[in-house]
């Protein structure tokens, strides 16, 4: 089986969760989306994805969650080798400065999306971050080209010579 690259969405409010997933649904055909409503459930999902030798390319995570908070989860992922390279994004209205700084410094936070967000913004960020991930981690990025930033993937093929004449 080919390695699958997942998108993980962690959000405790069902309505918000739905609307995030709806906004990034164009990616689902190539990047299966998994949902969790707490850090605890997210951990279980992460374990089961990694067990299948699949990867998590992107996590969109709320900060205020029942139990451990979102930044806690992101830092934890950063410290785990298999999820260190996962692109980490906070979608929140309620993370304080201190928490956010911690996410930047200790979890290599790629983006902070303030609620409420614009659909275009979320799609654009998802596209860019997944493109980064695919360029760094996938040997044959061609199959993802149509939903990601095609120009950058073509440029990667031009300079990286992953594909040659045959």
């Amino acid at each position, binding site marked *: 089986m080919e390695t699958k690259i997942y998108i993980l969405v962690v959000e405790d409010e069902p309505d918000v969760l739905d609307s995030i997933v709806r906004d990034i649904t164009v990616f689902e055909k190539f990047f299966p989306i998994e949902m969790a409503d707490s850090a605890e459930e997210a951990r279980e999902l992460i374990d089961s994805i990694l067990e299948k030798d699949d990867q998590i390319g992107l996590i969109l995570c709320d900060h205020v969650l029942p139990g451990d908070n979102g930044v806690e989860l992101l830092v934890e992922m950063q410290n785990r080798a298999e999820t260190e390279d996962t692109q980490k994004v906070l979608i929140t209205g309620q993370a304080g400065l201190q928490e956010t700084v911690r996410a930047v410094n200790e979890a290599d936070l790629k983006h902070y999306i303030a609620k409420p967000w614009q659909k275009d913004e979320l799609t654009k960020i998802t596209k860019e971050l997944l493109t980064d991930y695919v360029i760094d981690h996938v040997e044959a990025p*061609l199959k993802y*080209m*149509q939903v990601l930033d*095609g120009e950058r993937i073509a440029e990667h093929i031009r300079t990286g010579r992953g594909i040659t*004449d045959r």
Partner: protein
Amino acid sequence: MSKLKWTGLILGVTGFLTPLVYTFPGLSLAGHFAMSIFLMAAVFWMFETIPIYSTSILVIFFQVILLSAEGFIDYSAAPYDPLPFNHFIATLADPIIILFLGGFVLADASVKYDFDKNLTRVLLKPFGSRTEYIILGLMVVTAILSAFMSNTATTAMMITVILPIIARMEPGDPARIGVVLCIPFAANIGGIATPIGTPPNAVVIAALNQQGLQVAFSSWMIYAAPLAVVMLFIAWKVLLRLYPPATDIISLTLDSKLKTSPNAIVLYATFAITVLLWITEGIHGIRSSIVALIPVAVLTLTSAFEKQDIRKLPWEVLWLIAGGIALGISMKETGLAEWMVGAISWDQFGYLMLLAVFGTVALLMSNFLSNTVTASLLIPLGISLAMSGIMEGQVFGMMMIGLVIALASSFAMVLPISTPPNAIAVSTGLLETKDMITSGLIIGVIGLVLIMLLSVIYWPYIL
């Protein structure tokens, strides 16, 4: 491993073993071993059980073990005079491989200094902003670049150029599909124009060299470049007909700024001198493979091309070509090619009929297989056929059949799997496979007809 690969593995091993246990009447002992290698290579190349370049390496490995003077088989009692093993491994330094190496260094250095991108923008300017001429311009530039660089790298670069153009076109404009398709088609067509344009040319030219037939860089261009020009024009017309532009004008912003660092200037100069010497080989007579050492030497000694750049060269393509060349050598030396050709009474076919058969088979095969593999499998048979004197004059016949095989394998562009440029174009998600099938089929068939036409009205008068 997929089912297909398993099938390939089983068939490949069976193919390899068959000549070892079954005796084919009229075929020498060495011929049997050569057939083992041929069958294994053919199956592995077709099913891609292992990467195509590893099949090439395996070919050379088995030749050294089974067919060389230093190998494990004692040929003292057999009529076969085994070649020294360095004959087989030397295919990796065959003059044509060195020519490609020079081309690769030039191409990769161009990418490093963005010469390909900036040159594209400069060359596109004169084509203006009318949609149909922009498409023509894209095709001309792609073809020119892919005549000297890899078709795949050229396509990847051109895709970065066309995506912003397409983003500005109306979503429903059929010409969007035309713009995407024109790139791989022009890249495939441009590849035929020079010996270094695409690997099948290399395999064919090396096979002709083995017969003592030197093909100058400029001669190849005289044979093939006119066809590339005509085909490019036809492909342009076909795409315009199938995908007529809905808007007349596309505004293009083409900012080009050629780099002016000392290393970049060294590259421009080296590029110009090398290409100039290549295309004038007919005048000064310095072989293109010797000229190819100029970019390798100059660019490395000036550090324009460094250690990590050398490591990044597409070495597996050179192995792939070397395996193809080596396969041809063993098939000819052991008499296998002659034996296989002798199994069919070709005399009933006319000479043009023969060319048509080879052209059609090459076109069909390379739509599904690698173009290089197609040429590697067909050229030993073609040359043996020409040697047997069925065609008018052996030298003439070999050249003709070599051209037909090389050119027809490059005109295969029906499916995404036909060539890497096609795969890249389909991956943009801007067109469907059926678009490629329709236009690729039309262009392929016209291409084959034109090849046949040239073998009647053009090549006989200039060869």
